[in-house]
């Protein structure tokens, strides 16, 4: 029960129940679709990257468990104002934390609030079958950034 409270913390329940930035903004210019075949969770991530390469807006749509919805919701809040390099760093940090590779996670550059939220989401590492729930949104965001980056390079 106490372990479960570590995973299902207030902030997770809150974001899971009332996700922020839920929708498809008209100005989004980078998107990707992600799904987890094992459990049927689906997500679409919509990013609006401005001329200076910063993420002006981040949103998502989809369905899934509390962990996956909360992770997506919290991610969109963390992304706003970040550069592509920042976003990729956040993805790698999140991935390392959730898969039990804390030593590879570099939290030093992150503000305290972001680092705290990532640690809360990383509580999922105690539940190996659920890690993909927490990381789905992040993989999808990274895909959205990278696919577009490749297109940009080819221009």
């Amino acid at each position, binding site marked *: 029960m106490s372990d479960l409270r570590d995973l299902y913390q207030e902030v997770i329940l809150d974001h899971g129940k009332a996700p922020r930035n839920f929708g498809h903004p008209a100005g989004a210019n980078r998107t990707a679709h992600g799904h987890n075949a094992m459990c049927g969770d689906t997500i679409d991530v919509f990013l609006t990257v401005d001329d200076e390469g910063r993420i002006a807006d981040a949103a998502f749509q989809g369905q899934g*468990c509390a962990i996956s919805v909360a992770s997506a919701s919290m991610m969109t809040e963390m992304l706003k104002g970040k550069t592509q390099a920042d976003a990729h760093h956040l993805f790698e940090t999140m991935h390392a934390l959730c898969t039990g590779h804390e030593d590879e996670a570099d939290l030093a550059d992150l503000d305290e609030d972001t680092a705290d939220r990532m640690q809360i989401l990383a509580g999922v590492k105690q539940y190996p079958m659920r890690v993909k729930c927490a990381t789905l949104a992040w993989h999808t965001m990274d895909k959205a950034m990278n696919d577009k980056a490749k297109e940009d390079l080819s221009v």
Partner: protein
Amino acid sequence: MTLATIDPIHRARRTNGFDVERVREDFPILARKVHGKPLVYLDSAASAQKPRAVIDAMSRFYEEDYANIHRGVHFLSQRATDAFEAARAKVARFLNAAKADEIIFTRNATESINLVAQSWGRKNLGPGDEIVLTELEHHANIVPWQMLRAEKGFEIKVAPIDDTGQIRLDAMAKLIGPRTRLVAVSHMSNALGTILPVREIVRMAHANDALVLIDGCQAAVHKQIDVQALDADFYAFSAHKLYGPTGIGVLYGKYALLDAMPPYQGGGDMIDRVTFARTTFKEPPHRFEAGTPAITEAIGLAAAIDYLAELGPSLVADHEDDVLAYATEKLTAIDGLTIHGTAAEKGAILSFTIAGAHAHDVATILDQQGVAVRAGHHCAHPLMDRLGVTATARASFALYSTRAEADALADAIGTVKRIFKL
């Protein structure tokens, strides 16, 4: 600690001489703990636990009688061949098949269905032909037909269910016509527990000269199967859901049908005579069993059938019905919980959702109380779409399940509601 020490009512519980507490002692794994809690295993529809009789029969076979079959003239090969063929005969009696040669050993029920699709289907289905499935089907009884359709160009019709999860026979009757070559249906839904009126379905199909394949994965565990009384043309099930080992399944087929079917895979053990110019094939069932089969697993399956026969299938069925009815009552009383699948004819499966808590969160929280359930789409995406859900939690009961375990499930759901403040 056994479950009996949690709930004294459970120890006293007897269903007409079926002593579940004694039966539980036959299953070594049920004594273990999970996350420090007694295991409450409610995932038998995914795979059942194994009684010591099965585990021992397989160990004994490896220790005393093991060799390859149908090959050697030596003593052990003869022993192993006899045991393997005796297992086939036992499966034939279990299904009340007319003869042992109507029983083909496969890897699992999925392979059994693929065998019918790739052998009978490839030979007999083409443009203008139709097959009829139902909305309840497991992916194993959908995807093999879609793969063949892509090559052969026949049509797949899907019979709808009503809101209780039962097939709508009137609607199905309209789909079965002169173009129908095959009706492929679940005997019991793995996701909802619905038991389909397969005898009626066979009648409707045969009236239109269509064959019937029955996916009996769940039904073979909970019901006594008589393929002759059902007049089924093909019947498939897996040993691992029937308290037997993984790696072996069964396809029953009427002998005349099997005899007219081409081989499914080529290799050793299925041939009559091989030259580089041409090869002739053995009679059924060997024609369909290329290569060394799951020999020890066949011995294990036979032991599982013996074990069930000793317990008494009707006593087992009564016990499972009792636990299902009790669990249904307990879960129905939980506010915000919806049971999916409320057909009058149901086997020991309870699929449910809780408003405000996703099935995966439910399953994780239950697991922490030692309660193992399946959560997800149950390999039945079309059915989930029909129900308008993405996932359900599913508690499935077996001969070793108890009322106390249904109580443990209800209590653990209470924890879900507390954590999610529902």
